[in-house]
């Protein structure tokens, strides 16, 4: 079987800063979450997979094609949906006309079929009743959903979503999860997020990236298992913990090597993630 995404030894630098270093990754169909602190290289990795950026080193195969080859790149783009971190949209356009324009760029040339597809994706993201409102009149969350709608056009085999839930309220996030749950089983989704709860809810597999390197790639349950027996509750931050943060109840959650008799709590993916990435990510989770 051809792997939807296969990276080998991929590296990328921006003006002396290493964004990605020797990244080797193979993704299978299904939803994969990409976790990592700010500056970990998540967006760079997604841009490379989405053919928006070329790596400096290594090989990339997406949907069985080589994005460095023009024909391969076109073949990939025909089967790809991409939501960049800052999706933007033409503010003077209506949601319908903007998504319709992207549909044209995606080679949907039959007008009636295209319009039906635009209506489908707008309904899927809950914007069916706002389709003919100008984008400048939509809220930030709605604009984000317009971006998501264009990514869903044409039932792509590979969906690359950079922080898709940013700006969405809880109800919208639930709807987003439903949208992903409704995708065909053979579709591949790679989404980056800061929210480990999104990963827990959506992603059977997860990749943890930090400082441009892959720290973990496996099942989300395996990420949680990394922290089994290593998360405890205490009155105060424990100096033996790798990371500690204050819970809403005013107590402290510690992750690391627990002291004898510590009040252990069940581990989740966020705890495994924190063990891997340390205090930088802890600040994000706590916030």
């Amino acid at each position: 079987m051809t792997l939807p995404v296969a990276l080998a030894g991929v590296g990328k630098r921006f003006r002396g800063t290493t964004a990605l270093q020797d990244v080797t990754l193979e993704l299978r169909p299904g939803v994969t979450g990409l976790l990592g602190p700010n500056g970990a290289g998540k967006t760079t990795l997604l841009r490379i997979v989405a053919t928006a950026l070329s790596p400096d080193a290594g090989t990339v195969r997406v949907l069985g094609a080589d994005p460095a080859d023009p024909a391969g790149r076109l073949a990939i783009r025909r089967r790809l949906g991409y939501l960049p971190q800052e999706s933007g949209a033409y503010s003077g356009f209506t949601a319908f006309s903007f998504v319709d324009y992207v549909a044209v760029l995606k080679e949907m040339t039959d007008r009636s079929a295209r319009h039906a597809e635009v209506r489908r994706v707008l309904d899927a993201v809950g914007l069916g009743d706002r389709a003919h409102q100008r984008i400048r009149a939509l809220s930030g969350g709605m604009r984000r959903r317009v971006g998501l709608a264009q990514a869903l056009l044409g039932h792509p085999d590979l969906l690359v979503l950079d922080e898709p839930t940013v700006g969405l309220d809880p109800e919208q996030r639930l709807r987003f999860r439903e949208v992903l749950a409704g995708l065909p089983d053979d579709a591949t989704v790679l989404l980056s997020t800061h929210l480990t709860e999104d990963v827990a809810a959506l992603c059977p597999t997860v990749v943890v990236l930090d400082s441009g390197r892959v720290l973990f790639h496996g099942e989300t349950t395996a990420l949680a298992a990394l922290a089994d027996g290593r998360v405890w509750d205490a009155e105060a931050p424990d100096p033996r913990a790798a990371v500690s943060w204050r819970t809403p109840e005013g107590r402290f959650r510690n992750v690391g090597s627990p002291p004898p008799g510590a009040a252990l709590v069940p581990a989740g993916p966020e705890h495994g993630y924190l063990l891997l990435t340390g205090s930088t990510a802890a600040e994000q989770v706590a916030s």
Partner: protein
Amino acid sequence: MTAAVAGRDVVVGRDTVAAMARAEVRYTARNPVLWAGAALSAVGTWYVSTDGTFTEGRSVTDGYGTWELAAAPLALAAFLVGNWAALRERPATTAEMFTSTPARRWDRTLGLLAAAGVPAILALVLMAAQWTAVVAQGGVRIGQGRWSSTVTPTPLELVGAPLAVACAFVAGVAMARVVRSRAIGSVLGFVGWAFLYVFFWIWFTAPFGVFAVSRSSVVTADLGRDPSTAELARWDGVDPPGAFAETYLAGSRDLGFHGLHLTYVLGLVVLLAGVALARSGPDRRTRAVLVAGLLLVVLGVAGQFLVHDGAGTWMGSL
């Protein structure tokens, strides 16, 4: 889905580019700035068609010489609409989103360039209205007093304004591909437009007239203080010495010269389109567009110099 060009499956097919062009045509046709420009041009057309500008026999430069001047507001609007449409894409947001679609920036620019037809058609409609009004009044009078004649504008003379307006739209797109700021592009466009239209008398002067984007089919010549009768009779109209000039200024419609001038303007449109495409990413077809534009420009310019002796006279009448 569409089939790409046979044997070169690295770019989107023609039907995708056609669909993009149709979309851009729709957005351009709905643009209120374009319609505001068209409305101002319509007022200008109505005014010059009814106030006797072309029929009463005025100066050879002020009358028929300003045949295309009413299209000036539409040309400015076309530039702005083309420029702003090309700058809808922001590098970090929409451009990033579109990068992962099959249609490349080059294809998107090509689709947008096709929308130049919208302002061009508006200009053609205005010119046709002007032509109809003038013909209904018996034709155009060139010159004044005893040295004047009346001619009927030809269909060729309807082409100049649409070409100039299309040129403005394409220049707006090209400007956007070179200068990414809407504000700077708009200011530069306005300055260029003012140079081309507000100071229109510059284009009655050689050799600048050869390079005008918009001018009538009338060519002028300074006959000096004491031309012979035969020399005066050679021209469609002559302005006798007056408050503005101490010499006889003659003007005649020269359709051959005008045709070559239109060839030059068409070349300019193609050349600017080539610049816009060249700045939109690599594609082997860009070179052909640039070469075609350059050839038309050279042909048009060289032809004008060849058929009209006065075209090369520094600061002479043209």
